[in-house]
């Protein structure tokens, strides 16, 4: 059987759990038409990571915390700019991405000049995820804890999140603390991005949030089912992608896990769009042809 010859199975298992977390949390972004939010958070994590590194806070926990903090800060920028009519949502998002990423590049470049090789070597890792061969299960433990936390919050605030995603006005009339719940949802999204950083990397993280939800949307119209489907798709793609990267790596080329996972999850989304029984393009075409023939 594939993969049993090494320690890759526990790693693939770990990334699968992370895929489930991102897939589940990503559903909120997709139904709220904010699919590209994850893109901003993940790009904006870069200056946080660089700054923590510069300040000497180099343990995994600090780096993840700093990544989340600066990622969240980018969303504060977006929300502030949109609320005060400085720009439309898409332009605010695009501007946050480039400004934060630009700052990140500036800091990283300073780091490379002062520190040399060690820091420089870590930049690509955060951009595209680590090479499968380097990753161990122990690396994933902090991320698994954070991911569990994110899912815990989702379960705890299930009704509130649902209401806010589909009918924010109604939530307001019920005197729910809309602002607070919205902040909590943002924190959960940031957590989901942060846990994916090491496996998928900054640039590709948004896909792991969006694609499982897009796939799941083709299979069900109920939000609960949607989230379960998305978690299943996310974890399956992450598992398959990790194994694929590992096997390509064994054949001599160093392949990061990010791209293979993203390609797997995109394939799942495209196949769902094409073949899902009720909404899919091919079943729809067949139904129409049958109706035309009858």
């Amino acid at each position, binding site marked *: 059987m594939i993969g049993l010859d090494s320690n890759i199975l526990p790693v693939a298992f770990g990334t699968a759990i992370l895929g489930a977390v991102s897939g589940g949390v990503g559903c909120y972004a*997709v139904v709220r038409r904010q*699919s*590209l939010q*994850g*893109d901003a958070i993940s*790009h904006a994590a870069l200056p946080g990571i660089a700054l923590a590194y510069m300040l000497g806070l180099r343990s995994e926990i600090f780096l993840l915390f700093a990544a989340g903090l600066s990622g969240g800060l980018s969303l504060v920028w977006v929300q502030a*700019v949109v609320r*005060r*009519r*400085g*720009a*439309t949502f*898409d*332009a*605010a*998002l*695009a*501007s946050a*991405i*480039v*400004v934060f*990423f*630009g*700052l990140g*590049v*500036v*800091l*990283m*470049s*300073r780091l490379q*000049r002062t520190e040399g090789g060690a820091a420089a070597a870590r*930049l*690509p890792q955060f*951009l*595209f995820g680590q090479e499968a061969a380097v990753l161990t299960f122990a690396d994933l433990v902090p991320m698994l804890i954070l991911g569990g936390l994110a899912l815990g919050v989702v379960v705890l605030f299930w009704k509130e999140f649902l209401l806010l995603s589909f009918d924010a006005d109604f939530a307001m009339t019920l005197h729910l603390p809309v602002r607070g719940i919205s902040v909590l949802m943002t924190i959960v999204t940031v957590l989901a991005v942060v846990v994916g950083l090491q496996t998928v990397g900054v*640039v*590709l993280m*948004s*896909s792991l*949030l*969006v*694609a499982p*939800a*897009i796939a799941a*949307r*083709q299979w069900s119209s109920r939000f609960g089912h949607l989230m379960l489907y998305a978690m299943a798709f996310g974890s399956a793609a992450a598992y398959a992608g990790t194994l694929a990267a590992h096997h*390509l790596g064994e054949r001599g*080329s*160093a*392949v*990061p896990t*990010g*791209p*293979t996972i*993203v*390609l797997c999850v*995109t394939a799942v*989304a495209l196949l769902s*769009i094409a073949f899902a029984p009720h*909404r899919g393009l091919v079943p729809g075409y067949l139904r129409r042809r049958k109706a035309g023939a009858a």
Partner: protein
Amino acid sequence: MTIGEVELHAMLLTASVAAACAVPGVFLVLRRLAMVSDAMGHVLLFGIVVAYGVVGSLDSLWLKVGAVLSALLTVILVEQLQRTRLLREDAALGLVFPALFSAGVLISSLYFRNTHLDVDQVLLGHVEFAARWDALPMLGLLALNLLLVVGFYRTLKLTTFDPTLATMLGFAPVAVHYGLMAMASVTVVAAFDAVGPILVGAFVVLPAITARLFVDRLGPMIALAVGFAIFGAALGVRLAFSFATNTAGMAAATCGLVYLIAFLLSPKRGLIAVWLRRRRLRQAWLQALDAHG
């Protein structure tokens, strides 16, 4: 404080890159397609890698052609996915560009491990090595973009602000859309050598939204955006050389800083102006209440 020759060349190049990007940027921002610039930047790598695989040489115009084609491919794929009505625009964009980017990274790490197609270099740009005449092609592109905008000014204006009316009057908004996308992708591709594909977006989006804070008319908005682009880029290069750091990243950051300052101080839409206006209105209202007992 003197400016060295290397810095001057970097400044010229970055400023002309920024100015050329700002022109299509105005239309992308007004049409709410700002994220397309981000997507375009990401997929260039895919086009370059595929073109490199086909042509087999690095110093080739074909790489640029491949990059432009990959940007247009993204636009077409997003349109087609949206037309299925199974997913919305933001989701379609979020699905397509990471996938193409991944394919690019994967192909390059599988097949081109030992070539000079260095992913970091491709991602971050190298304006620091600008030569004397490097700015000329970008200035040419700026002139071309401006010429196209002036030539098709009324068409662009109408399709941007009222696509329905434009269709009824016999203009072709779809053709204009693809024309604009072609202009944007050629500009982004020409620019990414200098500043890297991700930070190109800074010059596309930031000058346009900065200009939008000051004016409501299209012509002045384009002129102002070009001005802000040149100012932000030049300031960024200056700071980058003072602090010995990455030029493109610094230029993106300074364009952001210029936007923030404008957002604070703009006489019409600035935070301070809006706050003052609100306070004046509130006081006028209270006085009116008092006067009428």
